[in-house]
């Protein structure tokens, strides 16, 4: 387990005991990553801030929802942010007018990004590894993965948008996930 993961674990333990300072430490550690993700998925700063606020409040209300046996706190919390962002997008169908913007990893026009964000070394390193892994995917697999994850599209909707069978979406999704697993976790 990484040093940063151990620190997160300790902060989460203190949070479970009602330690407000631990909550604020976790906010400082993850607010930028959470907001960057929520902004990418929702495409709207106001909604993205709602998502981040909801996620942190949910964490405060029920820190026990995190089970250390299931992986790093970072994975748990950012997945929680992602779920809420996708739920928001699906509720707000009008966001679909943002079109293809959410389907790539180029910075949004006017998005306040990166340079002045202070993050742990591990997050910066892992971000680079994830991006490199994504770049190894064949374009058709990368497309369905990004439409699902960053666009919040269901597999049925992706098939409709791309004009391909749902079965092809499933196949490409699985192939992409397998490749990412091999790339990021050094599996055979």
């Amino acid at each position, binding site marked *: 387990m990484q040093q940063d993961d151990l620190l997160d674990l300790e902060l989460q333990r203190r949070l479970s005991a009602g330690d407000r300072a631990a909550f604020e430490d976790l906010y400082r550690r993850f607010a930028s990553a959470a907001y960057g993700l929520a902004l990418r998925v929702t495409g709207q700063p106001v909604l993205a*801030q709602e998502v981040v606020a909801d996620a942190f409040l949910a964490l405060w209300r029920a820190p026990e929802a995190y089970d250390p046996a299931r992986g790093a706190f970072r994975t748990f919390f950012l997945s929680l942010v992602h779920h809420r962002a996708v739920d928001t997008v699906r509720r707000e169908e009008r966001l679909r007018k943002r079109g293809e913007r959410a389907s790539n990893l180029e910075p949004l026009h006017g998005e306040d990004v990166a340079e002045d964000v202070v993050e742990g070394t591990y997050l910066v390193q*892992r971000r680079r*590894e994830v991006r490199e892994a994504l770049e190894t995917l064949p374009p058709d697999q990368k497309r369905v993965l990004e439409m699902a994850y960053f666009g919040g599209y269901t597999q049925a909707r992706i098939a409709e948008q791309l004009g391909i069978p749902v079965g092809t979406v499933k196949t490409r999704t699985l192939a992409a996930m397998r490749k990412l697993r091999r790339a990021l976790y050094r599996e055979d």
Partner: protein
Amino acid sequence: MSQDHDRIEELLAGYVLLGLTGEDAIEADRLLSEHVPTCPMCRETMAGFQAIAGDLALAPDPAPPSELLLPRIRRALAEAPVGRRQRGAGRVVMVAGVAAFVGLAGLTLSFGSRATKAEDQRQRLVQTLNAMQQPGANPVSLTSGASNGGGLVEIAPPGTQRMYVFGTNVPAPAAGHAYQLWLGSAGTFVAVGSMFEPEEGGIVVIPFTVDLSRYDEILITEEVAGSTPSIPSEAHRWGAALAAAAAA
């Protein structure tokens, strides 16, 4: 890897990306509650995919939220104590007390939309009782706003997304009405399964699958039978914090 496991892996990949709908979503829920917990290969697959989903969250550029966000969250915290500490003590149905129901002949139960056969119903009751007896799966009472609310509890065995609502002496809904289960987060709720009514003896057993990272509240309301409500009514509701129950 067998053909079945290829199919399961395909569903799990779609599940962690939140991409499943319809029959695929139902099948994934079933697999996650029945097969995956007992299959080391599928557990490993699921854990790996969940880790990848967490990693994908890092791909976008980080961006600092507004300076106003943290003060706003602080204000909300001041108004919202930690969920599990604010939950009122309620009546808890003890495992030993409900175990006696297993052998009752002709027992019919409410399970939601998918269970129709008596044997299936009986098996689900056994599942519920087994869940209640797992270490750490202490039943938690759902708080009722009514004086005759009956005894409803939620049971959340650790290490699974399968949960159960079990109750006895649950009063019948008003004429032309039925009960609806909802899962919620931050005050927004979605209806889960079909409407139901308690069976003889006011017995209710409802198994369901829930992603605790998405939902943290449970509600049961009384709705007009046959309607498709999009928000919970204020009528005769029970409620509790989901995640708190999982850890209680």
